[in-house]
């Protein structure tokens, strides 16, 4: 029989009052449909209005609600209380790892946004045909080549999982590289050359040691680790080819 209450230990930090984060415990009811996010909402609405966190869609598509739950990066809208309650565990909720903490469970994302922009995540076709000419033709097979990498919701769980991000803040990171690959592999894009400088770089793909945690925690099965390794191979082949035929030939 599942317990009908469960304890949440939540990381609190208010820069106006605290020097560093500390934990605070709350007891919440367990309902079959409740996820960790519902527990947080319950606490904020009825117990402590100062509890601060991000959320929006409640269905795993907006990417706002990522947090560390018992040491694992998770979307809190997709993490059921019952899966912890049935083992009699407590639930420890902390902000995503390897990001600066603004307050309570809110992380600072400007660095991540800057990295996304650095990889030039927009279509760079060879020329821009007028709309009157219709769509770029792209077969379902060509769409399938990059489709997986286009599913990223920017939830940054992969950054919280990657030890390289933690140890080397300049590392561009899994989501940004996967997004760059999404465009590199899009048959309509010819901008791979413009992305080389940032990707084939010690802070780009060469910073990755294929720990593979990013792929394991990704809630949308984007497989950023795969994207990075695929780019590594492509970059090496490109480099070898440049001896045989100079770039641009």
């Amino acid at each position, binding site marked *: 029989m599942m317990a009908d209450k469960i304890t949440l230990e939540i990381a609190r930090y*208010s*820069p*106006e*009052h605290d020097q560093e984060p500390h934990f605070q415990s709350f007891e919440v009811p367990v*309902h079959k*449909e409740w*996820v960790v996010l519902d527990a947080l909402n319950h606490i*904020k*609405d*009825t117990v*402590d*209005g*100062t509890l*601060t*966190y*991000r*959320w*929006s*869609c*409640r*269905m795993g*598509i*907006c*990417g*706002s609600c990522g947090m560390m739950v018992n040491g694992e990066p998770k979307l809190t*809208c*997709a993490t*059921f209380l*019952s899966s912890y309650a049935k083992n009699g565990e407590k639930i420890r909720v902390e902000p995503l790892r390897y990001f600066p903490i*603004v*307050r309570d469970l*809110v992380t*600072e*994302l400007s660095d991540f*946004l800057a990295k*996304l*922009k650095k990889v*030039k*995540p*927009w*279509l760079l076709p060879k020329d*821009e*045909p007028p*709309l009157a000419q*219709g*769509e*770029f033709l*792209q*077969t*379902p097979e*060509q*769409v399938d080549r*990059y*489709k997986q990498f*286009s*599913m990223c*919701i*920017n939830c940054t769980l992969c950054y919280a999982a990657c030890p390289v991000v933690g140890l080397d803040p300049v590392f561009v990171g899994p989501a940004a590289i996967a997004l760059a690959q999404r465009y590199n592999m*899009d048959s309509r*894009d010819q901008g791979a050359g413009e992305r080389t400088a940032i990707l084939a770089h010690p802070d780009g793909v060469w910073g990755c040691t294929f720990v593979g945690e990013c792929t394991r925690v990704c809630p949308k099965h984007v497989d950023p680790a795969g994207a990075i390794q695929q780019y590594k191979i492509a970059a090496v082949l490109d480099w070898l080819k440049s001896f045989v035929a100079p770039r641009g030939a």
Partner: protein
Amino acid sequence: MEASSHDVLMVGGGGAGLRAAIAAAEVNPKLSIAVISKVYPMRSHTVSAEGGAAGVAKPDDSLDEHAYDTISGGDWLSDQDAVEAFVREAPQELLQLEHWGCPWNREPDGHIAVRAFGGMKKRRTWFAADKTGFHMLHTLFQTSLKYQPITRYDEWFVTRLLVDDGRVQGVVAIELMSGKIQTILAKAIILCTGGCGRVFPFTTNAAIKSGDGMALAYRAGSPLKDMEFVQYHPTGLPFTGILITEAARAEGGYMLNKDGYRYLQDYNLGTPEPKPVLRCMELGPRDRLSQAFIKEHEKGRTIETPHGHVVHLDLRHLGEKLINTRLPFVRELCLKYQNIDPVTELVPVRPVVHYMMGGVSTDINGATPLRGLLAAGEVACVSINGANRLGSNSLPECLVFGARAGKTAAEYASEQKPASAAVLAQALDEEKRLEAQYLHKVGGRERVATIRGEMQATMERSVGIYRDEPLLQEGTAKLRELRERYADINLDDRSRTFNTELESALELGFMLDVAESMMQCALHRTESRGAHQRLDYPNRDDERFLAHSLVYRNADGTSRVEYMPVTITRWPPGERVYGQGKEHGEAVAAKRIR
């Protein structure tokens, strides 16, 4: 107080806001363009749209047919000049998105694939798997990154529009990160903040859909239009509001009341067959299904759960294999977000609020009567959706009117003088108000969540699927009481850094204003049309009400309702009926088109 200034400012960074920003940047790259959003743009609610975006694409289709479907679906409350412009520009906008990289689904030969969608008589819905809104939003966001003139204010919350000399001149906004209150001046402002589903308790809408832009315009003196028209989707999960797509019923799902009985057969929707039949039973029109739910509820035949009354969607007889191949997303959503397995369990569903046809009143270019203020997307009411929106029209609406508003705003801004100093005084007043009413307030006794819950219950009761005068009057009085109690709110959170409780309190204030406007529009429209159904006035009344409701805010927080005629160009009002009658009504109307 710090003040920054731009030429064009978009409030809201979703589909409409980003499209408008790009359009303005393309009109004049020398303009200073800013997008201010209370969340990062990729969190905007556009991201959750699944079905698709309609745009005439195939040779067997025509703009007139798309227009007619939209106008008749809207029960003839759509402005036909706007609809004609919309259907003409929709395919171009969708194509532009393709040129920017949107991964539309394709036919084997590489051309764009289109599919059928409820209410559309031809296949014209473009789609990107079952995550069309997600792909559109991310394409727009990523494309917007390459435009240098666009500055973004991420996680800034706009609290007020600044109006002086008869025109809008800027906004006051809180930078959530630091708590700093700042003025942002702009020569043209486009509201792109989306709808207001959160004034209801059961909604597909995300937490952020609190009608901010509608309230901002309303408080600034710009009218809202057609606020009584609220679209329900008949099958949503009761707790999370997650939408269970029509496809689940199209594949053969049954809807059962508490006795396990397929109750739709009692409501003129045909007789139950083991396999689904188009436009019968579970595949009847959405509003009829939602209305049937209400009637079952009144008869006491719905199932009570801790999260409200529901009926059951039974997919168990379809078998695991079919569900995994044809409805994998339905199964995934139920399992991952509400811990229910449709293969073995009955899925609780009920009608949930999905879309607001009404909003900030604009013309065909997105301009409101208030100079300098425009609006686009779900927050606006042009109106193309009339009394009832067709599925897959709202995504292209964001693009078409976002682009129009962006262009119009850019051209307008190029001709304006910079803002006057008088508005800076207004901004200081706003800052003092925020501190006095919320941050430094002493002695309040109400919690945000309590008032919000009561407002939502009131709206569901009085402005739900069926309305009548007594309930609307009761709702009006209750909202008045809630507005008074709102003044007595006490926040636990008095800090400045990322104060989301303050944000919820401000959103609640917006929602109370929007709720008031909806209640009054519903009260004054004494007819039934599209999504607005009055038990006491069950028929459509084209003589008096072939008009848009315009609601203005009075100084004391109450409102007044006026009417503005609908623009009819080529399609005179016909009957919106189903079954045999529908064909007849269409044949009559078709003759008139020719």
